[in-house]
């Protein structure tokens, strides 16, 4: 993002990012995305993508099974709600720890290989977890129906402090309800913290080591350095981010389903990262936002909305335009996303961040030319 990497520029970026995230309810209003559920999704999948980028963007390992950690985080959080307390703090902490442990196991095995073999191994593990959650582990995961809260859950910690109400209690952070805006600010603050951590990791010697692994792992090995502990640490950190995102999904909506672990969900985070810009700090968050926006807003456009949008056109033309545009919205939103993805990958392999950089370079060049042009007469003198 920034032209030069200095602590000062990093701090400015951090500040801008924090302000942008926290003011989402205001600047998302014109594009119809400023309702709590979608903003929660922006923040949550932003966290997921940031974590994924530490592994993929920084270390160069493409994992195709990250949704497994997301799912594990969700299940852990819901179980914490069921057994311990509706307070989100233990849920988030346990989810991060369990997802970390789980990713240590999978990472320990998968990282014996690199490149495509690593991707396939992680994909296999994720698909295995998905199928386990779907069928064999039904007592823990409630299979296809999904794990839900029930009024009869023990909630041992809550039972000590408060009398049970008439309905199922809702999740809270020491009294602040976690649905609606409360939930959004909770996720948003964790997103900012997550972003800051990833910034520190990128700038640290450890981050340098990860970049070295990405650029040439063989050379690293020839210098006598064992790269595996570093890669494994990156894998676990990234798994913990995914677990955090998973737990936040459960925090804002206390339900966990197996479909969260499906390979399509793993693919989605890869798309988010590539769309925004692999290896950049801000890119994955952007990508996550765009994909979630498409999924929730574009998919909801129906014929009557389109008709009212294009009502300024003459009748015959309006019908044609509505039926053509109709292919790309509503149930066809995948088509639009696919096209956008193709365009980005072909023309901007560095994602949206590369696009922004190109625009900036173009602008500066123009300015330089201009100033060069104004200087010319002096030279002629």
């Amino acid at each position, binding site marked *: 993002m920034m032209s030069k*990497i*200095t*602590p*000062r520029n990093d*701090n*400015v970026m*951090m*500040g801008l990012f*924090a*302000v942008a995230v*926290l*003011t989402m*309810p205001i600047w998302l209003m014109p594009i*119809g995305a400023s*309702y*709590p*559920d*979608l903003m929660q*999704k922006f923040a949550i999948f932003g966290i997921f993508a940031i974590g994924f980028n530490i592994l993929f963007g920084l270390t160069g390992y493409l994992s195709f099974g990250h949704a497994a950690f997301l799912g594990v985080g969700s299940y852990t959080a819901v179980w914490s709600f069921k057994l311990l307390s509706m307070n989100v703090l233990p849920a988030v902490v346990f989810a991060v720890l369990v997802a970390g442990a789980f990713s240590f196991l999978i990472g320990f095995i998968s990282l014996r290989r690199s490149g495509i073999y690593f991707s396939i191994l992680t994909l296999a593990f994720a698909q295995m977890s998905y199928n386990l959650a*779907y*069928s064999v582990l039904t007592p823990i995961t409630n*299979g*296809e*129906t*999904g794990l*839900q*809260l029930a*009024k009869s859950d023990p909630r041992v910690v809550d039972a000590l402090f408060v009398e049970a109400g*008439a*309905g*199922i209690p*809702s999740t809270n952070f020491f009294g602040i309800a976690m*649905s*609606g*805006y409360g939930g959004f*600010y909770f996720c948003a603050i964790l997103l*900012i913290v997550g972003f800051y951590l990833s910034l520190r990791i990128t700038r640290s010697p450890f981050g340098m080591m990860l970049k070295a692994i990405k650029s040439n792992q063989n050379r690293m090995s020839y210098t006598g350095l064992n790269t595996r502990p570093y890669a494994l640490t990156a894998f676990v950190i990234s798994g913990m981010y995914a677990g955090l995102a998973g737990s936040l*999904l459960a925090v804002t*909506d206390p*339900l966990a*389903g197996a*479909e*969260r672990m499906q390979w399509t969900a793993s693919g989605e985070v890869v798309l988010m990262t590539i769309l925004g810009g692999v290896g950049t700090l801000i890119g994955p968050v952007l990508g996550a936002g765009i994909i979630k926006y498409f*999924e*929730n807003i574009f*998919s*909801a456009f*129906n014929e009557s909305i389109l008709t009212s949008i294009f009502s300024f056109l003459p009748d015959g033309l309006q019908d044609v335009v509505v039926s053509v545009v109709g292919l790309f919205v*509503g*149930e066809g939103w995948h088509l639009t996303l696919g096209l956008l993805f193709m365009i980005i990958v072909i023309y901007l392999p560095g994602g949206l961040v590369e696009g922004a950089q190109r625009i900036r370079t173009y602008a500066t060049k123009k300015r330089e030319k201009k100033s060069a042009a104004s200087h010319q007469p002096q030279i002629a003198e």
Partner: protein
Amino acid sequence: MDEIKKGVSRRGVLKGGTALAAGLAAPTFFMRHAFGADFRNNPGDSSSVTFGFNVPQTGAYADEGADELRAYKLAIKHINGEGDGGLLNTMQPLSLKGDGILGKKAAYVTGDTQTKSDAARASAKRMIEKDGVIMYSGGSSSGVAIAQQSLAQEMGIVFMNGLTHSNDTTGKDKRRYGFRHFFNAYMSGAALGPVLEAEMGKERSAYHLTADYTWGWTQEESIKNTTEGLGWQTANAVKTPLGAGDFSQYITPVLNSGADVLILNHYGKDMINSLTQAVQFGLRDKQVNGKDFQIVVPLYSRLMAQGAGENIKGIFGTTNWNWSLQDAGSQAFVKSFGQEYGFPPSQAAHTCYVQTLLYANACQMAGTFYPPEVIKALEGFEFDGMGNGKTLYRAEDHQCFKDVLVVKGNDNPSSQFDLLEVVQEVPRSQVEYDASIFGGELGPYEA
């Protein structure tokens, strides 16, 4: 490199950033409660109310979803007094006047559940938080329906279930804010039992293939209870993943199991695939234990019958409603649906249409959109003229009780839609049960 040079201290920036963030966040925290609405999405003085229609537009149940959406649009038209009025002409007792609800026009928004709980809830939340719907509805998968129904309770917005057949929807997982007009697996079993006994006798051995989620589980249980009550054996019950596509690995073992009846607890495209494969494997031409091998599909729909083509001929099952019914309500609905879209409606369309009208009517009856009052108006509401004869919305579990149809795949269809032959209209009294047998709790009126 000037990296060591100090600009503004990091601590300073962080402090400033936090203060700024808190300042920006504060007004939104206070604003939240400033609008003084007495219940969520109160239409207040606005001239319209919005309904949310959340149906599967992609995935295994997409055909059903498309038909449901057609029915919803038709219902909105009729509520607003457009078109021929449909069931508003036959429904008894009726409070709606064909000029909207309580003087407000009905509008709608749509969403795609993708037949996934997560996506369905995200879509429903968009409707509630962004579009301000006063009620939402939709269906085709019980797992998704249950997930949406519990969201309804959390949010305090009424959810009218569309097509969902699991016992759990109005049993173990029932909610005060969820209502179901559709019948359930228990009723299928109770209605199917006597017919199976008459057609296939008392000495049979059944093999179940079951979709592995809440609906499949409860249907398998209900049908098993019925058939075992008749004296049948249960050879085996195998769970298959939802949307499996290829069922050959599950059908091959049936041949060697000694079973002479295959019960397919599948729905939608799954049922089309499993039935087609079972027929291709020659199951129906086989003789086992000296009897003809039979296939039963406990939950039938015309859309599935269309998909399975020739293979459904002579196969027994149950449905909630069929367009060939001759009562005034069914006829009126088939007529206005046919005029609008050019073909007869499915049972999914019927139940969704009726649910929308019932909700609108309850608001009119209650004289308010305040959910607890609307819920009380629906609870114990008895009506007629909507197909299926006299129907009761039972207050204890929000389940409708009405006649159930036992049907058979038509041997000589007269048209591409005339696929199901109604074997018997099983009266309501035969399928009723005690509300307490499935457990569960409705929860409070105030969400």
